[in-house]
């Protein structure tokens, strides 16, 4: 077997209370393309940041060509030839391509820039002239420049953090060809990070899998590993549902017909002909890796996003043309994915935030009754056991769990008939998750029609009656909960349909 070029041993790293990396081992072979697979938050980016010297591990060692490295910082990592392309580009927008490529003092192509640029432009099939400003390039072209920057800085180990996340399928294919060439002809060692199964199989030679900050599989040969095994490794075994699902389902409360959204340059993902309906007493789970249109779908149903094609019907009424308030009047509640920033306003007091949904009921004409607001907050505190001692304190002084309880309590106390809940338990500890799940189940038993958007398969399997998988803005598969398992749902989430 090949010699290990770079090795990370027993790496530990935590951020506050969160253990991002827990005793992680990782190693790279010269000239190979390595895949690093894992869900969002599994620790992939943290590990890469440690290898490129941006983060310092709390424990563990990094070994380069058999030599243990003392403290690694970005400069010393650069000297070892380790370079990283981050998910957010680090290019200077109003500099030319050439200036960006030759910016670093590590740049090796000083006199022969033209030649080198020509050679790599061909490898990357880049059409732009090197005088072009970065701001004039497309996202895909910027990505190419980022990778070329590593080459020009003489980085032999290239860490690419989700490089395909921003690319079109065509650009993804191009990238695959370029990376193959680089690893074969230039003997570049490449780490390719993704959570897409299809890509990891196509791009890489060997696969590492991370889950919850641990390296759960090392050095699996890509050719021989099965999709199903990778999904199980990435998602883990699902604990069996203990929630009874035999409650009575009623009439249809929410119908969505032919919803489409054209993706523009405003940062929204597209949606393609979405059709679904939810009955009273039913929880419809929406599975999918985030960024596949979930936020847009939820915003369209709740009335936040007004420009779309298709029809939304709540309790038999067509609300496609109606605003947020009109939909709230039909007793719709929306628990947005972005807790602080959308659901709750940062910099504003707990008291003010507690009445965002119902502040009108605390008003007499233009007058807003502070007493009524305080009573309402106290009711929420009591009903949902929220821990806070100072209602006038800023909202961000609450813990994440209490913030979410306040948000969900506020949205659920009116006993809504239709609920859109997006990532309701993300980032919360186990006890808070349990409490919030109980709230959702109670609502279901009270006859609410609930749409549960989540990336957490445990949660979806536990709570939902049916499951839709959203991939690149399309519903690519629908499951009855009894026939859903980690494998078939995981595969669908990765865009693979059997």
């Amino acid at each position, binding site marked *: 077997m090949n010699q290990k070029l770079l090795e990370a041993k027993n790496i530990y790293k935590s951020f506050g209370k969160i253990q991002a990396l827990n005793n992680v081992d990782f190693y790279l072979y010269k000239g190979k393309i390595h895949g690093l697979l894992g869900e969002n938050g599994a620790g992939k980016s943290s590990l890469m940041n440690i290898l490129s010297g941006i983060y310092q591990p709390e424990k563990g060692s990094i070994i380069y060509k058999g030599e243990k490295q003392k403290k690694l910082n970005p400069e010393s990592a650069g000297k070892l030839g380790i370079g990283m392309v981050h998910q957010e580009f680090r290019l200077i927008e109003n500099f030319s391509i050439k200036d960006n490529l030759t910016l670093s003092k590590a740049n090796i192509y000083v006199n022969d820039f033209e030649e080198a640029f020509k050679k790599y432009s061909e490898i990357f099939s880049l059409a732009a002239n090197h005088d072009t400003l970065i701001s004039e390039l497309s996202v895909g072209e910027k990505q190419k420049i980022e990778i070329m920057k590593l080459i020009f800085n003489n980085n032999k180990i290239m860490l690419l953090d989700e490089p395909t996340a921003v690319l079109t399928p065509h650009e993804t294919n191009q990238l695959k060809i370029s990376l193959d060439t680089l690893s074969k002809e230039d003997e570049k060692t490449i780490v390719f990070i993704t959570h897409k199964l299809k890509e990891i199989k196509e791009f890489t030679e060997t696969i590492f899998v991370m889950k919850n900050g641990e390296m759960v599989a090392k050095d699996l040969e890509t050719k021989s590993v099965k999709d199903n095994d990778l999904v199980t490794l990435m998602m883990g075994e699902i604990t069996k549902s203990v929630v009874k699902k035999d409650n009575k389902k009623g009439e249809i409360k929410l119908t969505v017909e032919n919803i489409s959204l054209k993706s523009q340059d405003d940062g929204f993902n597209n949606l393609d002909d979405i059709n679904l309906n939810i009955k009273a007493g039913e929880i419809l789970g929406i599975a999918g890796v985030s960024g596949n249109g979930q936020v847009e779908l939820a915003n369209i149903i*709740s*009335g*936040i996003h007004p420009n779309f094609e298709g029809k939304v019907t709540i309790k038999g009424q067509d609300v496609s043309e109606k*605003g*947020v*308030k009109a939909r*709230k009047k039909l007793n719709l509640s*929306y628990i*947005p994915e*972005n807790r602080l*920033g*959308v*659901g*709750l*306003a*940062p*910099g*504003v007091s707990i008291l*003010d935030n507690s*009445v*965002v*949904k119902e*502040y*009108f009921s605390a*008003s007499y*004409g*233009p*007058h*807003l009754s*502070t007493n009524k607001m305080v009573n309402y907050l106290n009711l929420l505190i009591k009903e949902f056991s929220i821990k806070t001692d*100072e209602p*006038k*304190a*800023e909202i961000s*002084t609450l813990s994440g769990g209490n913030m979410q309880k306040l948000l969900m309590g506020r949205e659920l106390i009116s006993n809504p008939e239709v609920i859109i809940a997006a990532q309701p338990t993300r980032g919360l500890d186990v006890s808070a998750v349990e409490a919030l799940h109980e709230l959702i189940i109670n609502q279901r038993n009270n006859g609410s029609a609930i749409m549960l958007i989540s990336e957490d398969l445990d949660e979806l399997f536990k709570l939902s009656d049916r499951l839709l998988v959203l991939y690149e803005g399309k519903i690519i598969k629908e499951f009855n909960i009894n026939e859903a398992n980690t494998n078939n749902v995981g595969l669908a989430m990765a865009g693979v349909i059997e």
Partner: protein
Amino acid sequence: MNNYILSKKTVVNDLATFYSFLIGLIIAICIGSVILLIQDQNPISVFSLMLKLSVGSINSLSSSLNKAIPLILAGLGISIMNSVKLWNIGAEGQIFLGAIAVNLIYINIEIYNSSLFILILLISGFVGGSICILLPAITKVVFGVNEIITTLLTNYIIIGLTIYLVNGPWKDPKSLNFPAAAYVGEEVYLPTIFGRLSSGFLICILFTIGAYYLKEKSVFGYEMRIAGGSAMTAIYAGINARQKAFFAMLIGGGFAGLAGAIELLSQTHRVSIGISQGFGYTAIIVAAITGMRPIGIFLVGCLFGALTIGGAVIQTIGVSSYIAEIIQATTLIGALVSQFFFTYQIKEVKDG
């Protein structure tokens, strides 16, 4: 190993703001004393003279409060705009346009009932201030142009307009070449309450209560707070964030415009470049020191009015009036710095 971090306190209460203001004032007086000592003046005698001549008699006290009126009104306008997290640097221009609007209406309309006339003129002042901020408000709401820049730049335009008017079309031939418009008639003078105190001060009290109510106790104030906290939360709640910002700006500008109207009708009685002596800028200091609290703006406005009068009178004993401005500015710096210590606390965190 233990680390110490600065962490933000959960609540910054009114008392903490008051303490930080006091500390700022003490720092300012100390610095002022040093400057006086350098000039071979006895700080104690200078300050006691300032005190005596600014609040020591009915006349001096009422002069001080008169000076406070534009500071308070413009400060309240700034505070209302700050509810949506917008800064009004244009109060100075709004004061001028308020006064110009009053004069424009005065020359073109004649109403024989003088209280009704005064009321109409005051409203014109308010509307003038709103018109002054209209362009910044539209560009902010429609295109997202930074209001700090646009309101600041509007000041130069309005002051330019004032200079043009008082040197050109409105120039009073009887003013002996002094660039000023003609005096308004005595029938529209704001009556005095006692001493020299203008009844504008009552309007000021009324508007302070109004601003407090609007900000803290009304639905509109609530919607402004949410819109100021997060535009996305506002959209989510069905609140039109842009509309709130727009109206907050118009109201804020109107408050300053009203200050200009009162200044014209009770103090200068004619439009000239002396309508405002930097009131719009000092009002920013007043509003910032109090953490945008209307009641605080009222109190600090009164104090700053007294400081301005005190600063003016000590010139008679050969001390520069700038000492008052130095005290105002250092109070702000001192208060903002000490606010930091009331807002944050040092916490010990254990490693790992």
